[in-house]
C-alpha cells in the first residue's frame, strides 16, 4: 500500500513505541521548527504568555505554544495580522504556534450564543453587536494569524450533557470539518486538524472517528473532553480514540494538562496536550513539583530556604528560595512571572522525561515512579489505576 500523497506542512516520525503501553515518542516537523512528542503546549491566549518574553519561553525548551482565535480575532483583529504578516512576526516567536478555532471560547465565554448549521451566532453583551462565526470565518481568521497548526470549527457541547444534542453536535462537526477543509487557503504552511467529538458515548465517538479519519487531514484532536466529566468516562473515550486513529498522524488531546493526566494519557497513545492550568495556577501562587503542588502563600514556606525544587534547572529555582517567593507571591507581578517560568519548565521537563522513558522502553517504570511520588500513600485515583491497567501497567 503506497502512502497517501502528503500535501501537508507536517511530518511525523515515530522514534520509539513503548512495548507495554500505547505510548510513543515522535518527532513532529512543522514549518517553524521540530517538536518532540509527547509535547505539552502552554497557552498564550492573547499573543503573550502572561509576562514571559518569547526569549524566556524559548530558553525553557518550549517548541510550540497556543494562541486563542477568539481573543486575537477581537484584539488586535485579523486585519492587523494580514498587515504584519502573522502572529509569529507580531509577537516575535520563532517557533511553532497552534490556534484553536474560537468555537470553544465563543460558547463558554459569551452569555448569549446560538448554534445553527450556519455557524455560532452570538451577541456580545457589551456592545450588542451580532457576530456569526462560521467554519469559513474561523479558518479565514486562523489563516491571517498564521499558526502552524489550526483547528477546525467544531460544534462543542459540554461533556456533562447527554441526549440527542450530542449526536447532533458530532454530525455537525463532521460537516463543519469538510467546510473548513474547503475554506483553508494555506495548506502548504498551515496544518488543519480535525477534532473528534461524540461526548462520552462510544458509539458516537466511533462514528465520528470512522468518518473524520477518511478526510486527508494532517492530524487529529480528541475534543469535547476535559470539561468536568467523570474521569472514569474520560479515559475510556481517550483510549477508544487512540485505538482508532491512524498511527502515522499526531493525536492532540485538547485541554489536558494536569501532570498526572499527561503521564496517563501519554500511556494511552496521545502525542500533544494543552492546558491553562500550569500558567494559571502560577499566578495564584502555586508551583508544580514532583510530589504534586506547593502553595507558596502558605505560612510553612515563610522560613523555608530551599528552592521550589532542588532538581529544577529553571532560573527561579536557581536563584530564589521558597521564603523569598512567599514574601512577594500574589503581591508583586514579578512573583507571577517567576512561578510561571518554573511551572513551564516543570512541564517541559516532565514531557522530556516521558519521552526519554519511552525511547529507553522504560515507560512502565517511569509511570510507577511518578505515581508513587504524587501519591506516597498509594491512594491512586481509581481512573488512573483502570486506565493504566488497560495498557498493561499495574500500579504497585
Amino acid at each position, binding site marked *: 500500500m503506497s502512502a497517501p500523497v502528503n500535501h501537508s506542512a507536517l511530518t511525523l516520525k515515530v522514534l520509539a513505541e513503548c512495548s507495554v503501553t500505547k505510548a510513543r515518542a515522535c518527532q513532529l516537523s512543522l514549518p517553524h521548527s521540530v517538536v518532540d512528542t509527547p509535547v505539552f503546549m502552554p497557552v498564550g491566549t*492573547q*499573543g*503573550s*504568555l*502572561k*509576562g*514571559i*518574553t518569547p*526569549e*524566556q519561553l524559548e530558553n525553557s525548551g518550549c517548541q510550540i505554544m497556543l494562541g486563542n482565535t477568539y*481573543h486575537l480575532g477581537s*484584539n*488586535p483583529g485579523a486585519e*492587523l495580522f494580514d*498587515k*504584519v504578516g502573522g502572529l509569529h512576526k*507580531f*509577537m*516575535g516567536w520563532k517557533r511553532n504556534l497552534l490556534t484553536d478555532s474560537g468555537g470553544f471560547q465563543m460558547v463558554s465565554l459569551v452569555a448569549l450564543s446560538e448554534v445553527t448549521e450556519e455557524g455560532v451566532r452570538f451577541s456580545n453583551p457589551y456592545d450588542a453587536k451580532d457576530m456569526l462565526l462560521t467554519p469559513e470565518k474561523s479558518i479565514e481568521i486562523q489563516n491571517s494569524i498564521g499558526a502552524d497548526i489550526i483547528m477546525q470549527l467544531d460544534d462543542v457541547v459540554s461533556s456533562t450533557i447527554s441526549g440527542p444534542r450530542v449526536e447532533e453536535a458530532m454530525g455537525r462537526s463532521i460537516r463543519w470539518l469538510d467546510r473548513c477543509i474547503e475554506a483553508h487557503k494555506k495548506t502548504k504552511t498551515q496544518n488543519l486538524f480535525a477534532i473528534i467529538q461524540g461526548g462520552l458515548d462510544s458509539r458516537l465517538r466511533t462514528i465520528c472517528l470512522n468518518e473524520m479519519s477518511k478526510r486527508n487531514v494532517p492530524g487529529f484532536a480528541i475534543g469535547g473532553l476535559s470539561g468536568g466529566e467523570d474521569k472514569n468516562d474520560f479515559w475510556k473515550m481517550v483510549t477508544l480514540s487512540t485505538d482508532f486513529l491512524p498511527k502515522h498522524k499526531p493525536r492532540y488531546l485538547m485541554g489536558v494538562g494536569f501532570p498526572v493526566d499527561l503521564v496517563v494519557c501519554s500511556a494511552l497513545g496521545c502525542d500533544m496536550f494543552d492546558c491553562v492550568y500550569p500558567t494559571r495556577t502560577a499566578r495564584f501562587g502555586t508551583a508544580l513539583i514532583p510530589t504534586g503542588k506547593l502553595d507558596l502563600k502558605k505560612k510553612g514556606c*515563610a*522560613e523555608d*530556604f530551599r528552592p521550589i525544587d532542588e532538581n529544577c534547572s529553571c*532560573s527561579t529555582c536557581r*536563584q*530564589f*528560595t521558597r*521564603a*523569598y517567593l512567599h*514574601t*512577594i507571591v500574589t*503581591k*508583586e*507581578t*514579578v*512573583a*507571577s*512571572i*517567576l512561578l510561571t*517560568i518554573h511551572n513551564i519548565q516543570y512541564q517541559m521537563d516532565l514531557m522530556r522525561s516521558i519521552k526519554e522513558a519511552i525511547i529507553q522502553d522504560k515507560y512502565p517504570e517511569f509511570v510507577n515512579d511518578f505515581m508513587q511520588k504524587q501519591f506516597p500513600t498509594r491512594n491512586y485515583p481509581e481512573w488512573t489505576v483502570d486506565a493504566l491497567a488497560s495498557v498493561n501497567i499495574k500500579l504497585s
Partner: protein
Amino acid sequence: MKFSLRSVSQRGGRLATISELGRHGDKTVTTPMCLVFTQAGTIPHLTNDMVQKLGKHAYPVHLPLPLLLESHEILQKYSNGIGDFLALKHHLLYLSVQDSTIRPPEGFNEKSFVSLWGRSGRLNVDVDKFMSVQEAFKPDWYQALCDSDAGKVGSRKRAHKSVERTLAYLDRCLEKHKESEVLRHSCIFGSIEGGSVAEERELSAKETAKRPVAGFVLEGLDTNGPLDSVLPLCENGKKEIIQSILNELPDEKPRILHGPLDPANILAAVELGIDIFDSTYAFLVTERNAALTFCVSPDTESMASNVGKLQDSCNLQRNLYETSLTDKIFKDDFRPLVVGCQCYTCTNHTRAYVHHLVNVGELLGKTLLML
C-alpha cells in the same frame, strides 16, 4: 567609600567617580547616577534576567525599606543578607528609609520612632529596630533613620523637630554602626531635613556635615510621588533651599535626591550639585502605560517629533517626555517605541505589539515598557 570629583561645570553640575565599594572590590560607579528602584525587593515587572539587559545601568539598586520591613525576622534567620535573598548580591545595594513613589501621611512620627507603611499597615520603627534591620539586611549603603515630616509649609516648630530628631537618630545609628561587625563595609548616609524653613535647613546641613557620614540625602523637598504632584524645582523657592543646603555640605561626598523627577527637574538638580537619583519616574510612567520618548541623544529621533508630524491636533503626548501606548494610532505602527533606541524592547518589539499588550491588559506590556 571614596567619592572623587572629576570635574565641576561652571553652572554647578559635577562629574565624579565612586570607588572602594566595600565587598564589590574594584568596581566603580560614576555620577550623576540613577539607582534602580525596587518594590518589595523586585524591580517592578522585571525578572533578573530582564534586568541584566540594562547592563551596567542595573548595577546600583534602590531598596526602599517599608515593603521589606516585614521580612526582617526572615532575614535574621536567613543570615546571608538581603542581596543574597533577592538574588541581587552582585549589585550595589542602597536601602532608603521611605518609598519615594508615595507621600506618607503627615503626623505619624514621634520622638522615638518613625512610621513606615508596609503591606499590612503602619509600623513604628525606632533606632534599635532600625539598626537591627540593617544588621540583618547588610546593605552596601543605607540612609540613617530620619524624620522627614516637616509639618505644614512654613511651620517652624515641626520643621525644627524634624531636624533635631533626625540628628539624634543619626548619632545613635552611627554609634551602633561603629560597634557593628556586620556593618563594617556598609556606608551610612545622613539626611538633611527642615521642611521649607531656610534656617532649619542650614542647621540640618551644617550639623549633619559634622558627622562621619558617607554622603547626604536631601529629604522633605516634596519630590515624592505620585507623578503629577511633583512640582518643578525651579519654583516655590525650592531651588534656593537646595542651594542653601548644598552650600553647607562638603564637596567630596555624594548627594542623593529621591523621587519621580522628570528630565527638567533632574537637569535642574544636577546643575545645583545633586549626584544621585532613583528611577521612580520611569516606574510611574510605566504604570500609566506610557513610554518615555524624549530625545536623549542626537542618534534617537524624538517620538514626539515623529508623531507631531503625523497629527498635530492629536492629544497623544501627555507632556514632552512620555507617550501613551494606549492610543489607537499605534495599532499598526510597526516601528520601535523610539527609533534608534538600543534597548531590548525597541530592538525586539514594535509599538503595535506593546499597544496590543497594554490594550488587553497583558503583563508583558508593562514588562516591555519598564525595560
